């Protein structure tokens, strides 16, 4: 292949968001000594600016939709959807981070640079159409996330979280890479379209071979999305990591991991659906059940939300089990709704937890409605959305997922999943009960007034949640149009 067809202007435009994020992230590290002591907000603002630019970049890239770099990447509706999603998650992570970093007296430049790198990795994951590119994106995203999880160096819990995340994450990546290697060995290619062609051809590789590869990749990806039985790391990491980072981990990397999950299993491995579907079915049910029942017992809010996020991964896996374009669209919609409600809920936790993240217990939310009615009302929106009450994004997400599942005749999975969501209502209600029906606790009394960044970090996802709940059509139409992946 001639070099000039590799590096043409169209490819560069399709790669624009990644370029912006990487260049600005690197620039921040260079600027660190210059800007450092002058203003602690400088890097945050720069990071916001970068993310907005990347957002515009990804929309612009979509005008040039098509494959890039000889088919290693592909910019389609699906990729754009997830690029926009992870960048928006980035913005919603930066907003509460201003106050958080100031409160913890933490360095700002590395934090924001790492965040940008991680998002760049996720953008690569969203648009990769090649197993090696997927792997590279996964690694860029993960390594930055490992460091972010342990960003508060003096915090023992954060250190433990980071180490655990790193060790188990490396294992998972290893599994994934084994799978990739097997696929390459069997089909002679890492390009998803070529792999699919090889798998479907009459004299293709032995199904056992590809089946083992699929299982290995499934293990790696299930780890990344914290689906059972590979979920054990999530509660410890989510609890230990700094709260804005936890919010980010539970939304951004998860959404990107699901993007590649969907891309690989709905394109290259789709012909083998009958073999892997039972695996995903079991994993979906286990994730929902383990997540919801374990969350019932938690007293720490971050840990509670960690288990809840395992359960929500289970719901998305239900959509994957449906193995249809409707299912893919439902998963996309759900991940968007989930990102808003979850990141918003973590932002409230971050707001309330105070210096040194002292207040994280469910009991610390007592009486918040009397001290800060606005904060409590917004958290109520997120919790109702997590429960799945109508007129919130979470409800429509669940609705579309189970609709897709029923269309694919997964009646039992639907019934069990919906009953699971009734169980889940209990632990979300506990927070509502605390906020509205108890007298104010120390944490609620001492809660600082909402800063401007925090206000935006709460109101934007709340509006997003309500918008997806009342006018889901726009996002769903786009998801529906882009769910038919290039095969």
């Amino acid at each position, binding site marked *: 292949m001639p070099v000039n067809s590799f590096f043409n202007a169209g490819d560069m435009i399709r790669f624009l968001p990644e370029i912006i994020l990487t260049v600005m992230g690197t620039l921040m590290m260079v600027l660190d000594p210059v800007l450092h002591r002058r203003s602690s907000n400088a890097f945050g603002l720069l990071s916001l600016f970068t993310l907005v630019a990347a957002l515009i970049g990804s929309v612009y890239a979509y005008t040039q939709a098509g494959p890039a770099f000889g088919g290693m990447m592909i910019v389609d509706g699906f990729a754009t959807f997830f690029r926009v999603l992870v960048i928006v998650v980035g913005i919603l992570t930066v907003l509460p981070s201003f106050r958080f970093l100031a409160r913890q007296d933490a360095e700002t430049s590395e934090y924001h640079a790492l965040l940008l790198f991680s998002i760049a990795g996720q953008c690569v994951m969203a648009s990769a159409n090649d197993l090696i590119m997927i792997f590279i994106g996964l690694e860029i995203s993960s390594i930055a996330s490992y460091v972010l999880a342990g960003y508060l160096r003096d915090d023992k819990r954060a250190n433990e979280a980071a180490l655990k995340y790193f060790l188990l994450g490396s294992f998972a990546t290893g599994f994934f890479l084994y799978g990739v290697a097997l696929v390459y060995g069997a089909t002679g290619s890492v390009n998803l379209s070529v792999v699919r062609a090889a798998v479907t051809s009459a004299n293709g590789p032995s199904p056992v071979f590809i089946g083992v590869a699929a299982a290995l990749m499934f293990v790696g990806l299930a780890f990344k999305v914290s689906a059972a039985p590979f979920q054990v790391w999530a509660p410890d990491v989510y609890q230990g990591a700094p709260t804005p980072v936890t919010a980010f981990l539970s939304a951004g990397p998860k959404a990107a991991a699901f993007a590649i999950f969907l891309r690989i299993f709905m394109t290259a491995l789709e012909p083998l659906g009958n073999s892997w579907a039972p695996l995903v079915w079991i994993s979906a049910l286990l994730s929902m059940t383990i997540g919801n029942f374990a969350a019932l017992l938690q007293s720490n809010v971050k840990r509670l939300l960690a288990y809840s996020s395992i359960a929500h991964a289970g719901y998305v896996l239900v959509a994957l089990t449906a193995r249809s374009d409707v299912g893919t669209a439902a998963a996309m919609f759900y991940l968007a709704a989930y990102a808003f409600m979850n990141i918003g809920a973590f932002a409230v936790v971050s707001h309330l937890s105070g210096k040194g993240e002292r207040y994280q217990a469910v009991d610390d939310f007592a009486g918040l409605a*009397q001290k800060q009615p606005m904060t409590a009302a917004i958290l109520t929106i997120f919790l*109702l959305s997590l*429960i799945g*009450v*109508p*007129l919130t994004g979470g*409800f429509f997400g669940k*609705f579309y997922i*189970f*609709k897709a599942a*029923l*269309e694919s005749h997964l*009646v039992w999975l*639907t*019934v069990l999943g*919906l*009953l699971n*969501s*009734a169980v889940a*209502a*209990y632990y979300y*209600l506990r927070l509502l*009960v605390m906020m*509205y*029906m108890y007298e104010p606790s120390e944490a609620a009394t001492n809660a600082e007034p909402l800063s401007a960044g925090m206000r935006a970090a709460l109101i934007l996802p709340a509006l997003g949640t309500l918008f997806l709940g009342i*006018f*889901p*059509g726009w996002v*769903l*139409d786009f998801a*529906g149009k882009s769910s038919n992946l290039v095969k």
Partner: protein
Amino acid sequence: MNLLSVVLFLPLVGFLIALFIPRSSPQASRTWALVISLAIFVISIGLPVMLDNSATGEQFGIDVPWIATPAIHFYIAADGVSMWLVMLSTFLTPICVLISWRYIQHRIKEFFAFLLLLEFGLVGVFIAQDLFLFYVFWEISLIPMYFLVGIWGHDRRIYAAVKFFLYTFAGSVLMLAAIIYLYNRAGTFSYPAILAMLSSGRLMFDSTEQLLLFLAFFIAFAIKVPLFPLHTWLPDAHVEAPSAGSVMLASVMLKMGTFGILHYCLPLFPSAARTCAPWIVVLAIIGIVYGALVSLVQPNMKKLVAYSSVSHLGFVVLGIFSFTQLGLDGAVYQMLNHGISTGALFVLVGLLYERNHSLAIADYGGVATVAPWLSTVFLITTLASIGLPMLNNFVGEFMVLQGTAIANFTWTVFAAVGVILSACYMLWLYQRVFYGEVSENVRRHIPDLNLREWAVVVPLIAMMVWMGVYPMSFLPPVSKATARVLDQAQINVPFKVELPRKVEVARAR
């Protein structure tokens, strides 16, 4: 301007405006809630006035597309049954505002806001014609009630509120699965369209399918009714709720269940409904007798009234599953009657509680001496509740029993026991609370009705008498709607069902 949509959206507007009333002026919150709820009631009077009695089917319909894929419409309309239930909600909301005037002493703004949001949800449940929209309203009505019980309730309010939420939510998720399944089969959420498909035979369910779908809907509704043995949330929620919460819960929210059974279960799944009818009737009769027996031994007034609801609602379910015109009419009439008379009982018990801060029957005695008017009103309500002729419950109970007798006389015998028992527990309650020695405590703390309280009880008493003396003001639109339900319940029966011969006679009449 569509009258029905005005009645639906005014409570929401009222709720949103109530949110912006400053916390520092509780009087403004109260006044606003009263003004808007009275206005809604006055406007809703237009519904029965403008209802065209000669036309069949839903009226006041409005159909606006909401979400493109899957096609979900904002589609509301009312028939004779849902119209009266909407009227019941709009009639009781101002009454609830008035009885909460002094009763609610903290977080007043939120209380009245939630009350208006509750009215929005309840009205919506009764008039939604799109299954998806119905589910949305079904869940919306849950949230304000959860807060009403949980924030302003008595000592065990949190337990009661959570139990109430979880019971209802668990039931409704199964209904959601069934709704999605219906959509996948029919390709639309529009309820009239689905019924049309069923009657033209374009949509058929085999008997297993029908049974499972029926159960998914029925369990959600039965929890709300509540049908024995799914009733355990009810005594807790009723006892712990503040007066206004108990009134709305008993008078309107329970009707969501019976309305659902009548409006959805019967026309959608007629043969499954008939297959299950004997079992459901048995549960209803157990509920009637069991509720009455438990009422008999309650030391707590509110709990007594709560269990009496289990008994009364058993009659409604019995009437519905008699599959006779009389039984269905009686069931609907009984839904309205129960709303008025049990609502009034909760109001009056609330007035006693406000005065003496106790719900225990033992803490009262001789109230008739110190508060003769309050006692008179309570007596009329008691008599209405036990079904004295010329008062409302008599008409409904009679029609239900008559309708049931046409279908199966044995059922009637058992159900009639409930009527006798209701006289026992209510009169005994009256005797213990209002007659006997006057204790010093009662003499000091229980004044007679004041002007605001008169304004609450007079409309209730007036309705009891009106509905008891001249039911024909209410029944014709009801019969029209129930006849349609019965008609739809005849179709799409893939296997032959033996109907009692007398049912046919009754229908022919």
